[in-house]
């Protein structure tokens, strides 16, 4: 069944279909309609879950952490400063290996206050040990939420499903709502192997020493660093698991794309725009247009940002003369984080420096700055000229203050 609804409602329906059992959230623009919809679904009886109207984002994730430790499927959602207010909990959830799913409705962060879209909020949580997936449209939002639960529970690592505030959260477009029974088949009930249980008492997240320590039976158990190495190993394994899940989903629902990078006209492209989220779709019209001019361009949407699909970047995009990263975040004092990641990925792609793709970066759309199709077109066209030197950070859409 297709419906026309907002991106936030698409996310809420994904959570409903995923049968999340405990939901806790605190209102923040532009996430609010998502949690409003979930509370409505629960209050009306259309969804069977506990909705906890917490007093802060910090508590929202606290509820999810505890509920997940007790064995329930837990969900929360936030944006911008709400996500930053959760920050220590974000780390905690990953370290405790809890399969929580959180929607991050991307918004710029203060100061100064902004309510509009960019990706600085999610980027600032990049190194927390969460899987990060980005959606380009409403269909991907609803599908990704469902896939995220399965992925999280398979690898015991929490997942952020990121989608653009306003651009996706508050726009309306048609999308197909997956059949509930088929979702149940795809995503069976969550069974925690270990949970808070008086029949089998244990202490979770106990202080852990720098060095391994024997348990009561004399077995050597991990120190803090071993736990962290396991998280890293498992995060790298997510690349395989995510691909398997994407394949299963596609087989069951007849829909899906590359789990890592969704490419458009990249196969024979010499110049490829690389982006996260809805911007990648926005670029498709630009690519079509430049192709009409005879310029061999393509666009790639990075869908899985952590773990970073470095190998796929090399294999799928490494043939291009130049990769031009367009992103809505800055690692202040360096360059755009995605740009840096793409470069790092390509570093190992070939030993022949001449063969390696050049990478340049644009930062645009911060705090909701309007992105004009013409600007995208001109920027990409300029970058496509063989004479253009690659620059790590160029501002796009910045207005002179004279």
């Amino acid at each position, binding site marked *: 069944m297709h419906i026309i609804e907002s991106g936030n409602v698409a996310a809420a329906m994904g959570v409903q279909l995923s049968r999340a059992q405990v939901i806790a959230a605190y209102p923040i623009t532009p996430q609010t309609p998502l949690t409003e919809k979930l509370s409505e679904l629960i209050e009306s009886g259309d969804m069977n879950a506990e909705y906890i109207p917490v007093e802060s984002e910090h508590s929202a994730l606290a509820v999810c952490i505890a509920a997940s430790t007790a064995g329930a499927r837990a969900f929360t959602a936030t944006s911008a400063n709400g996500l930053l207010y959760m920050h220590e909990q974000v780390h905690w959830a990953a370290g405790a290996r809890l399969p929580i799913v959180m929607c991050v409705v991307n918004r710029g962060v203060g100061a100064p206050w902004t*309510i509009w879209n960019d990706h600085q909020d999610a980027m600032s949580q990049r190194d927390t040990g969460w899987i990060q997936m980005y959606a380009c449209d409403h269909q991907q939002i609803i599908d990704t939420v469902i896939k995220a639960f399965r992925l999280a529970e398979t690898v015991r690592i929490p997942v952020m499903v990121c989608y653009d505030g*306003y651009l996706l959260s*508050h726009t*309306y*477009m*048609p999308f197909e709502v997956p059949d509930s029974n088929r979702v149940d088949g795809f995503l069976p009930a969550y069974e925690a192997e270990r949970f808070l249980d008086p029949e089998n008492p244990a202490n979770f997240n106990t202080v852990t020493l720098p060095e391994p320590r024997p348990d009561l039976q004399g077995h050597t158990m991990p120190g803090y660093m071993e736990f962290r190495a396991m998280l890293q190993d498992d995060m790298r394994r997510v690349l395989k698991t995510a691909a398997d899940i994407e394949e299963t989903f596609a087989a069951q629902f007849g829909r899906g794309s590359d789990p890592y990078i969704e490419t458009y006209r990249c196969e024979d492209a010499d110049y490829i725009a690389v982006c996260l989220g*809805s911007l990648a779709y926005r670029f498709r*019209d630009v690519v079509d247009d430049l192709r009409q001019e005879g310029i061999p361009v393509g666009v790639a949407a990075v869908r899985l940002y952590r773990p970073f699909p470095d190998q796929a970047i090399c294999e799928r995009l490494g043939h291009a003369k130049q990769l031009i990263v367009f992103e809505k975040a800055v690692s202040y004092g360096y360059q755009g984080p995605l740009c840096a990641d793409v470069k790092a990925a390509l570093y190992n792609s070939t030993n022949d420096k001449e063969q390696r793709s050049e990478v340049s970066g644009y930062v645009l759309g911060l705090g909701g700055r309007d992105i004009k199709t013409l600007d995208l077109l001109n920027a990409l066209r300029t970058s496509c000229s063989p004479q253009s030197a690659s620059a790590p950070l160029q501002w796009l859409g910045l207005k002179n203050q004279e």
Partner: protein
Amino acid sequence: MAYIHNETDIFTELMGATSVHTSEKDMKKDIIEIRWHGRGGQGAITAAKIVAKAAFESGYRGVVMVPTFGTERRGAPVMTSLKLSREKIYDLSPSLNPDMVVVLDHLLLEEVDVAAGLKPGGWMIINTADDPDAFTFENIRTAVADIHHIAEEAGLPQGIVNSGIIGAFAKASGLVDMDVLSRIIRETFAGVKPEENVRSACLAYDRTRTGGVK
């Protein structure tokens, strides 16, 4: 069910207008853009959503509705852009050069440049008691309906204009069949006077008056 009133004519006409007046190279697919102006709380988004659903059911694969968000509160001017196309639409930016403009409250004309960017030959659809010829937009076709009174006559409380304006839009644009719209209005307002809302839209459809191009 998916019968589209005057579909081909309107499409050709609108697209023709687009191509004539685009100064730079037209990068867009064939997209019809309708910009809705209302006030916070007036239901412009709901109205545009109803049209979006009807258009999707009528065969438009590309349907995108983009509210423009600031920090508006109830009563402040708001705007939403509805884009319709035969193909998936990727551009989620607001309509700067709409083919049609729908104004839910004629007093907005004094506050907002509702005609900004409206393509020559495009439609301006206004909720007003005035005559269509009272408006002097250059090279624009005007359609008017007195939705405030029509809605009251239909049995709606004062100020409910978003269902009625859909009728005026349907009449002027000819884009979507009134039967489809009526059904979706009924579904949308299932809990709040569905029949009255449908009646308001249908009455508005019948009583919409159009002026010539100035």
